[in-house]
């Protein structure tokens, strides 16, 4: 056991060591900073080793294994409050650890190529390592407070990495926005913890889940809701989602790792971890499902209208996260976690692919400038692209694979996980869990599935098919395609690995009914369900096999329709014409989508600005004029003291000291009298 603890603690300790070593040496040593190969390799290894250790732990576990708890030390202990730095290795946390370190390692590798020309290379890798450390604390913590350390820690890393190129105010503003929106969620999280401690006197998961009977129904609802509000911050759901699109200001590997694959799924992890508590409040489950479905469709409609490739992917992420919350709220915790995993594969692949594209476009901009042609174009705008498949075959193929996966076309990963989410929504509608509302949400989810296939193929086709359009848009850029090139192997290897995972990842969760239809008995072919069955409190399946088949066929039909429509509208370089057609067809609605529902403007206008204005024009003035004014108005005392002070302020310190000593003596004398 002792050696297991030592081995386990390496998982946590190595990324932290990477942050400290690279961060501190890098801060002080210029010689170290330029050793990029060394820094990148070191940082990547310090994620790869924890991944391998996690694999080792995973191989020594089975679906029935008891949770192993590794206590390192006591963190806080005052009065009756005690909390340990203790980690919990069970089926859920090891799954998350594998995703975090596995995808994390690939993205470290990718970054070695992507960030190769950046002067602050060392800082980037230090922060990435710190992120992995924080994320591991989040998923492995044995209690809510340590989870919260990871929770805020990933928020910090997100802040540091979104604002990585801080010389542009836009980037640091986006970083600050992300942190503050997350803090609003954390406020709710904190209060939920106070309520938990007040009720069961502990923040350990075991204690909470074994004593659910201690909580009143109101407390279950309130705590669950507060935790969910925390989750809407971290996982970018309505109403706190607006920070995520801005977060794309960070380097693209960051968008892939933090803002797609791992951090933003924390909320789903948290709720799954506490799933036995959540299922006790059907009202709350419905709220979660509604918010999830709403977020999914709102973000998907925005994604259709965007031209910035990262922006499309950002809204797509919000939308996919919405799906996961829909699944949670429909009692499909395993389905949600399944989508967390598959989404990590295909969305990381898409972001890294977009990074590969952006890198090349930057290269074009750079080379053009080198030729003396200053072309001011946005290297992330898909209207400037097109035809890239000829120049970037690996990027194209992997991007296409991931697109097919996210669109939900079988047999790629996204099909299985998305289909399962829609199935659990329909299941909740059919069961005694909330009735027709869930059926309605299934409809919303299905429409979103159509939109997903549509906007993803719009993006992929516009970017990679047709002709390279930069030359058509900017006269100076004619012939610029000669500067287009495929990215180096450090970048394409992670792309291919992720594309591979996005292809086969779905087989982790092949629905049982497929086998059951043929065997006419109970089958357990859904690997993920078997694996997580002791942790997630999923709703029971009440759908008949026949209905499940129908649902599956409907969802395939929807995905293929969306893809085909996009193909028809956007191939042959008709993106702008087709967008204009959409705009004409949907009128004001399309404008609303394009303006992102004006949520930012509303928040700023209704909350942000008024609070600042109020503080500035009312509170600060009140402080000076009223609170301080009362003091000043206490007679001419001030002026009196002022003149006294001028008189005694002779500048000779000894005279002050003398006066003071006399004062003390007088006071003491008075006392004694």
């Amino acid at each position: 056991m002792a050696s297991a603890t030592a081995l386990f603690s390496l998982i946590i300790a190595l990324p932290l060591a990477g942050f400290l070593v690279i961060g501190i040496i890098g801060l002080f040593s210029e010689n170290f900073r330029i050793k990029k190969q060394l820094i990148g390799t070191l940082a990547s290894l310090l994620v790869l080793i924890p991944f391998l250790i996690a694999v080792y732990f995973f191989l020594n576990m089975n679906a029935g294994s008891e949770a192993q708890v590794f206590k390192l030390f006591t963190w806080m202990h005052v009065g009756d409050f005690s909390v340990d730095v203790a980690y919990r290795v069970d089926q859920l946390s090891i799954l998350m650890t594998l995703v975090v370190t596995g995808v994390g390692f690939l993205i470290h590798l990718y970054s070695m190529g992507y960030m190769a020309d950046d002067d602050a290379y060392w800082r980037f890798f230090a922060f990435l390592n710190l992120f992995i450390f924080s994320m591991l604390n989040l998923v492995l913590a044995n209690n809510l407070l340590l989870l919260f350390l990871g929770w805020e820690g990933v928020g910090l890393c997100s802040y540091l990495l979104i604002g990585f190129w801080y010389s542009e105010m836009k980037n640091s503003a986006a970083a600050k926005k992300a942190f503050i929106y997350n803090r609003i969620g954390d406020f709710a999280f904190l209060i939920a913890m106070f309520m938990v401690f007040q009720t069961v006197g502990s923040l350990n998961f075991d204690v909470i889940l074994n004593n659910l009977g201690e909580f009143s129904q109101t407390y279950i609802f309130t705590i669950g809701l507060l935790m969910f509000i925390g989750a809407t911050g971290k996982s970018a759901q309505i109403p706190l989602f607006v920070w995520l699109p801005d977060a794309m200001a960070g380097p693209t590997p960051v968008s892939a790792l933090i803002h797609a694959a791992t951090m933003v799924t924390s909320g789903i992890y948290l709720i799954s971890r506490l799933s036995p508590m959540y299922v006790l409040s059907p009202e709350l489950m419905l709220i979660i499902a509604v918010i999830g479905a709403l977020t999914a469709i709102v973000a998907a409609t925005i994604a259709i209208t965007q031209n910035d490739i990262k922006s499309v992917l950002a809204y797509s992420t919000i939308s996919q996260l919405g799906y996961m919350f829909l699944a949670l709220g429909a009692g499909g915790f395993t389905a949600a976690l399944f989508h967390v995993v598959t989404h990590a594969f295909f969305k990381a692949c898409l972001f890294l692919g977009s990074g590969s594209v952006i890198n090349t476009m930057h290269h074009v901009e750079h080379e053009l400038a080198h030729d003396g042609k200053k072309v001011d174009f946005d290297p992330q705008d898909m209207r400037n692209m097109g035809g890239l498949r000829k120049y970037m075959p690996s990027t194209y193929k992997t991007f296409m694979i991931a697109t097919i996966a996210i669109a939900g076309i079988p047999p790629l990963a996204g099909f299985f996980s998305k289909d399962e989410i829609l199935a659990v929504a329909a299941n909740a509608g059919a069961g005694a869990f909330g009735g027709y509302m869930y059926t309605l949400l299934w409809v919303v989810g299905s429409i979103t599935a159509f939109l997903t296939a549509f906007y993803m193929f719009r993006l992929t086709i516009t970017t990679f098919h047709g002709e390279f359009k930069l030359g058509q848009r900017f006269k100076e850029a004619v012939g610029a395609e000669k500067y287009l090139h495929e990215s180096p192997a450090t970048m394409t290897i992670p792309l291919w690995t992720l594309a591979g995972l996005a292809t086969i990842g779905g087989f982790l969760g092949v629905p049982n009914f497929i086998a059951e239809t043929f065997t006419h008995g109970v089958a357990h072919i859904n690997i993920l369900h078997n694996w997580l069955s002791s942790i997630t409190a999923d709703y029971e399946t009440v759908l008949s096999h026949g209905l499940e088949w129908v649902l599956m066929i409907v969802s395939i039909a929807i995905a293929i329709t969306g893809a085909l429509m996009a193909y028809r509208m956007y191939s042959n370089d008709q993106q702008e014409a087709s967008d204009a057609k959409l705009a004409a067809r949907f009128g004001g609605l399309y404008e609303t989508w394009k303006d992102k529902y004006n949520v930012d403007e509303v928040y700023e206008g209704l909350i942000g600005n008024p609070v600042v204005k109020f503080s500035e024009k009312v509170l600060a003035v009140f402080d000076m004029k009223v609170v301080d004014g009362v003091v000043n108005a206490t007679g001419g005392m001030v002026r009196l003291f002022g003149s006294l002070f001028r008189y005694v302020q002779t500048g000779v310190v000894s005279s002050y000291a003398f006066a003071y000593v006399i004062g003390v003596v007088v006071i003491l004398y008075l006392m004694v009298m």
Partner: protein
Amino acid sequence: MMETLLNIVIYLPLLGIPMLLMVKNKTTKKWIALLVTTLAFIASLPLLFNFDVAASGTPQYLTEGGRLIESIDIKYLMGLDGLSLLLFMLTTFLGPIVILSSWNSVDKHLDGYLSMLLILQTASLGVFAALDLVVFYVFFEFSLIPMYFLIGIWGGVERIQATIKFFVYTMAGSLIMLVGLIYLGYDAGAAMGGGVNFTTDWRFLSSSLYQIGLVDQTYLFLAFALAFCIKVPVFPFHTWLPYAHTEAPTAGSVVLASIMLKMGTYGLLRVCLPIFPNAFMEFAPWMAVLAVIGIIYGALVAMVQKDFKKLVAYSSVSHLGFVVLGLFALNTVAVQGALIQMVNHGLSTGALFLIIGMLYERRHTRLIKDYGGIAKKMPVLTAAFMVATFASIGLPGLNGFVGEFLILNGSFSSTLYNNPVYAVLGTIGVILAAVYMLWMFQRVMFGPIHNEENEKLLDLDKREIALLVPMILLMVWIGVHPIDFTKYSENQVTELISSSQNKGTAIIEEAKREELPEWTARFYEVDQVESQLAEK
């Protein structure tokens, strides 16, 4: 042996004054000041290591002088217990840092400047070690004088106005406290008997032997609490602080924020709780209201400041609001949180003032808009600034979180508040702290450099790094393993709370309904207690 050491630590800084007056060379003077404060810090370490944690409720390393007069029990009574140990150590720890912080920036009246800092050091240590309230009062006052001069002579442009405000305010509080103290001394003396008619021995005053009547208690609590609230400062008594902080030289701001403000919260715990327990408990919800207003109001006003020193000053109002909220919640979790938060605020706000001072020394402006893009020029300062900022924001893993979490968690379930709304409102401060600190950080450190002057900035030198590193290490240490610090006060806080509650119950049970004025009876709900007693 150890009690001698305690006195040595307290007076060693004072001893440096004649030494530095004797030498001519300015650098030598600074070295002497640095040497004595460093020695005092080193000498204070055995006090920490030998502290009997299990017996933290009993004052240790006791020095007990003779009575002034047989019938007047005022004596030189010094010692450390769980309430004071960490603040005492914080003060010795900051001593050398404070001296080093102004190594190059102060040249005017160097003798006086260093002497003032050294006097301040001794006085502050005296406040935390004193166990006789008159001695406490003398040190409390003693600490103000050097601060007047530090601000008034070595301060910024509007230093005189700031000094006057500081002076008037603190003097008003002190005088009221003095009146209260004299009254208390006679009252306690009468209770003590045995030929004594005046005593201010804290051990007696805080014990169950001395029970003070409800009427007297109310007035005395108000007198002492007012003085302490001004010092903290609790809203609405805070307006002296932005002036004083802004105009004070860096060293003055650091001592003011890190140490002197704590004398207020420390006083509330040391004096008001055990001596006036009923009043303390009855006023708790009122104090919580002021604390919560301070947290939110301080943060909002901090947010819109244009001067970064003023911003940090208002942030102190907000942070100290947390401490007060924790103290009056009166359970071990919250009070322990408050105690560690006093130390935390000393470290993180102290570090913020040091860092701001380093920027000020280079650019001679405190306006946020004059900066921008500094991160590119000063990476080391940026890293340190960032750690201090996030400590101040309460990021888990750093010190501020531990204090805030314990305070809010304890307050949430405080039976005295009997309402979670105080903690919930206080938690809003956690959001606001991120808003005002990160906004300031962004404007000062990030973005393009738009001011030519900032192009020439040089990063921190070795001295400046040496100042900040120990503070940052402590921020991390407390954040990761707070138990190494909270253990010193754990037992005493638990005992103090239960003994004060018991004493309060005893006092109210013995109170005679008919002898009390109507408002007192109603305020302390004496009828209810009597009817409960009757039932038994």
